[in-house]
């Protein structure tokens, strides 16, 4: 019964590059495709935000303090009369770059450690993985706060804190893909030819982990943005006056009762962005999975 199905599959995949194949199945995931489009727009907005925003991020309008959404101020104003919509546009760049750069650093270190751990095994593996276990034993937020306590507050240190707490996640997942690939016959085949460790890792192991890496990378950006916003909310991240989404939430906290829009709109921005990254990650996983099994 599966015979016919696999035959069909083989037929379809003929003369198709792996990317085209991925694209074909990704397009079918309507929800995550939409999430991807949303994120693409968000990146564009983040890049050109400062130019299209109607007001500056620190432009005070003392006539309109804590005023609700109106045509003049689309998302209302905060306690200094600053336009919240404009601040969200300005802050998009901060949130996205904090999310991307911290996960990038975490993924880079985690992947290197994971591959070394999984490929060489034995004591190297035990040593690396015990350190990772220690890092993982702390709840994410607590670890980040601890790191900030050592490094001091500030956006750059938030990036480092979130990066460090992403390392063990990547190290673990990449280690397990490495173990799976290491035991395949094609890796044994290349070893029997006489390939060096470096060649086996670069040509066979790493390319095999890429699809897993992409999926986790995407998913982690969402949580990195969330943690970074959380740290800023606690006053451990961005300077309170910067239009960082978490810091904006923190600002509006005192006016929750009479001016809920001050927290609602930054909160909505965080929520939509994190959700979009997670949905995109889900879709990528489904689209890339057949390749992983392959």
């Amino acid at each position: 019964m599966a015979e016919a199905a696999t035959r069909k599959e083989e037929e379809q995949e003929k003369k198709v590059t792996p990317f085209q194949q991925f694209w074909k199945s990704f397009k079918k995931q309507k929800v995550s495709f939409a999430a991807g489009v949303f994120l693409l727009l968000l990146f564009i907005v983040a890049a050109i935000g400062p130019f299209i925003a109607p007001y500056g991020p620190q432009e005070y309008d003392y006539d309109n303090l804590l005023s609700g959404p109106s045509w003049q101020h689309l998302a209302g104003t905060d306690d200094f009369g600053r336009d919240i919509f404009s601040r969200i546009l300005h802050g998009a760049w901060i949130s996205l770059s904090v999310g991307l750069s911290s996960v990038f650093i975490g993924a880079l270190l985690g992947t290197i450690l994971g591959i070394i751990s999984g490929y060489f095994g034995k004591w190297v593996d035990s040593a690396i993985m015990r350190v990772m276990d220690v890092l993982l034993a702390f709840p994410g937020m607590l670890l980040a706060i601890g790191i900030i306590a050592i490094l001091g507050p500030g956006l750059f240190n938030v990036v480092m804190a979130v990066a460090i707490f992403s390392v063990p996640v990547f190290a673990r997942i990449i280690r397990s893909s490495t173990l799976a690939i290491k035991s395949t016959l094609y890796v044994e085949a290349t070893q029997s030819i006489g390939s060096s460790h470096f060649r086996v890792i670069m040509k066979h192991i790493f390319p095999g982990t890429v699809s897993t890496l992409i999926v986790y990378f995407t998913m982690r950006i969402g949580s990195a943005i969330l943690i970074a916003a959380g740290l800023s909310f606690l006053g451990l991240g961005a300077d309170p006056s910067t239009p960082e989404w978490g810091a904006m939430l923190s600002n509006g906290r005192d006016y929750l009762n009479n001016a809920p829009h001050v927290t609602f709109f930054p909160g909505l921005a965080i929520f939509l962005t994190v959700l979009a990254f997670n949905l995109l990650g889900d879709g990528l996983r489904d689209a890339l999975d057949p390749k992983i099994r392959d």
Partner: protein
Amino acid sequence: MSEPILSINQLYTSFRVDGETIPAVEGIDLSLYPGEIVGLVGESGSGKSVTSLSVMQLLDETPGEVTGGEVLFQGQDLLKFTDRQKRKVRGNDISMIFQEPMTSLNPVLKIGKQLVEAIREHQRISQTDARKHAIHMLNQVGIPRSEAIMNEYPHQLSGGMRQRVMIAMAMSCDPKVLIADEPTTALDVTIQAQILDVMRNMRDQHNTSILFITHDLGVIAEMCDRVAVMYSGRIVEQGSVYEIFENPKHPYTKGLLGSIPKLGAKEDRLDSIQGQVPTVEDRPKGCKFANRCPFVMDHCWEEEPPLFDGKNRCWLHEREEATE
């Protein structure tokens, strides 16, 4: 000979993948008489396994669907049965054994419990009687220390033992038809010989009809009374085991027989069939074997030959008849 116990008439089965319909079996006619072993032989993708699943109505968990034809069991069309009627027939009148017995046995239940449940599903007998019957069946398939095996789990048994248990389970309700889908393919030759012996004994003792599906022509020659050779979803040649092996007519059958190395033959080369089995899309319009056939004629590409005399699906057959 009497009436066939099972007859497959113009069976069509296809698979639905991504909204497209892919034919897997296209118009199969096959009869099974009481006490007969019929071999269904073909390579991967020939549709032989799909045929057996269609007969057993086991396509539900696959994207496959029977799209035409009938499967008559004692004159009644199995394809028109309700779920309840199907369940009654399955395991009781028609049983099936598969290539990998481990997948058909529940890993967390003891062998004995599974056997007893299978028996009590179809027969109104007490727990103790069912247990006695189960042990009797295990003895019949040549399992030593059958009482002890009743209390063991599937993973404690070897592959050969598990296949014996499967046969015992399949035979426990004394079915009239046994469908065996590559039952010995996963086993070593010495164990395969044991299992084939067991199956032959079962046929001799219970007069069970067996539909034996395999890719191994050696096993077919040893086990079967009649043979149907499948290629690209069709039967291309059908006949008694002697006709097929001693005087094959269809070029595919000839090629297949030439492809197997024969023990002690001291051959220097094997007569192989050129090319690959075509994918469904690449199947030639006329005869499906045209692209690999050494005797291909212009006509073969144009029109698909019928199964002449119910025996040979080849245009050459017509020509041979004419010259004789």
